[in-house]
């Protein structure tokens, strides 16, 4: 508990840092307020009308209670934790690789998870004898195993985590390789393409309280080491040699934080499929509005990522209601538009 104290104090005192403390506190309050509003919005958004949903909230019966508290609430809370995990992982990846374009899927996790799910669907669909156990892993388990295997392959190819450039290159190679393998399998088994589409575009439809609890636990497990090592990421912004001269162990920092990114991304992908742009855009949104160190950036990116995915989830249910859009398509549109806006603003200010 003593070891956790500084982290807890840091979370509490992050708003009292000199300089940007007031703006940061406003920003955090704003994020939390938006999250609350989005949670309320998600409760009243569905195939039924808003009036009906409001009526359920005011006087719930057995059926409406199940819809509100067992379907809609875990879905939006789960979406928040998924977005928070992706935002946190994105901020860490950008810090570790010292590259603002780094994102959580950089180590090949998305392709690995997609391949894992493809194999699992094929194994579940056909009787494959010795491979039947893969089908029993389920989509979530297969995605996690696939993502973990992709990371292991990336780190093996780059011969460890010392060379950032090698790691990036290995991640790209593994990503392409596993995507190609998945495409080959889909060509051989076109009947699973429909199920794979749901995974590839991302869906919050399957989030339950059990998966939300898992996401919440993993989020806490990832946040604590990330905050403990945040000052190391600050030191890394001064360059690798300077960071080492300050007493930082780069292999330990990279290995721990890439482990955090891998765990967070694999869990998120396992629960909702591949949701792009949240991990890339959330840290930029924080940086654009606040002058922050990594401790503040990590917390900000998690809050922002959570609100972003919640908003995308709500939009995906609202735009063509009563039908739903894939949440990944919405995040891609919103995130892509934001990056274009960012580029336009920077070129205008330059």
């Amino acid at each position, binding site marked *: 508990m003593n*070891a956790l*104290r*500084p*982290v807890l*104090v840091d979370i509490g005192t992050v708003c009292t840092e*000199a*300089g940007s403390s007031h703006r940061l506190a406003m920003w955090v309050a704003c994020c939390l307020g938006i999250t609350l509003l989005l949670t309320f919005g998600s409760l009243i958004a569905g195939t039924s009308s808003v009036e009906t949903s409001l009526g359920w909230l005011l006087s719930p019966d057995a059926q409406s209670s199940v819809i509100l508290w067992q379907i809609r609430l875990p879905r939006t809370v789960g979406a928040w934790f998924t977005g928070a995990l992706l935002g946190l992982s994105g901020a860490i990846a950008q810090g570790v690789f010292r590259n603002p374009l780094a994102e959580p899927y950089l180590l090949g996790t998305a392709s690995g998870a997609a391949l894992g799910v493809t194999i699992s669907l094929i194994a579940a669909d056909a009787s494959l004898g010795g491979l039947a156990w893969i089908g029993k892993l389920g989509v979530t388990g297969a995605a996690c195993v696939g993502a973990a295997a992709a990371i292991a392959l990336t780190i093996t190819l780059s011969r460890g985590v010392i060379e950032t450039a090698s790691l990036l290159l290995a991640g790209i190679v593994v990503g392409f390789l596993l995507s190609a393998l998945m495409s080959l399998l889909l060509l051989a088994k076109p009947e699973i393409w429909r199920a794979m589409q749901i995974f590839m575009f991302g869906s919050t439809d399957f989030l339950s309280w059990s998966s939300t609890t898992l996401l919440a636990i993993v989020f806490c497990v990832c946040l604590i080491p990330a905050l*403990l*090592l945040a*000052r190391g990421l*600050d*030191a890394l*912004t*001064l*360059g690798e*040699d*300077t960071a*080492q*001269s*300050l*007493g*930082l*162990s780069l292999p330990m920092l990279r290995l721990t934080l890439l482990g955090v990114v891998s765990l967070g991304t694999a869990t998120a992908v396992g629960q909702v499929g591949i949701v792009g742009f949240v991990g890339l855009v959330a840290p930029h949104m924080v*940086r654009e509005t606040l*002058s*922050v*160190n990594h401790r503040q950036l990590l917390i900000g990116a998690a809050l922002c990522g959570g609100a972003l995915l919640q908003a995308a989830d709500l939009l995906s249910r609202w735009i063509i209601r009563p039908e739903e859009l894939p949440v990944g398509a919405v995040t891609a549109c919103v995130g892509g538009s934001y990056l274009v806006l960012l580029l336009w603003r920077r070129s205008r200010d330059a």
Partner: protein
Amino acid sequence: MHELPQALPPALSCRDLSVAYGSRIVFEGVSLDIRAGHWTAVVGPNGSGKSTLLRTLAGLREPHTGSVSLQGRPLSTWTRRARARCLAWLAQSAGATELTASEVVALGRFAHGGWLAHRQAADDAAIRRAMVATGSLSWARRRLSTLSGGERQRVHLARVLAAEVPVLLLDEPTTHLDPPHQEEVARLLREQALAGVCVVSAIHDLSLALAADRLIVLGRHGLVGHGTIHQALTGDWLSVAFRTRVDIVDQQGVRLWRPALETVSGLGPGAPR
């Protein structure tokens, strides 16, 4: 000129040091005993390995052959954090970051607390002292990326000073600085040396380097000499290192490098215009 302490042990030493980038040997056979309480300037032509020597002494580059000792102990036996509490290094071109100036300077105290430790009052005092000394306190809350090159350099210098360590290795600490600030830095390094710190700085400005207590002169393939300024001038080490005549003039006790511009056609004082 102040009295140099004589009885202090070598803070930093190396024996038969050679460093190579691939098949290219930068320098070889370099042996040095660098004592505490001195400001030592490292000079030499471009590519002679001034920065590489400092990086190797700082433990950031493995030597090809030879060994480095810090306060009498082989550098390899020091833990990373213990070494950072004894030795600070300033890069030739320190990066711009989105951190504020005070956060960058605070990183100088990184090794003084554990991963879980909070900043103590002593850390805050050291940070403030360093920022006051380098004149960087007024932009403490500004992002480093919004500062000019010279301002940034002073912040990085403050970061190194905030560590309050017995050995300072500074690679071109006066880069981007205007002449008055170069003079301030020189005064600061002298003060550090007088306080017992071992200050080693690579400096390409010969006149500024001659304000140091001692010189390490590197040539194309290794050490030309290590000694006092007087020894360096008497032995004409600079001319040997730069493989051209280097004129040093003494103006009221201040030694200055005089460029031989009159030998360049059209630039001499009597040249037709």
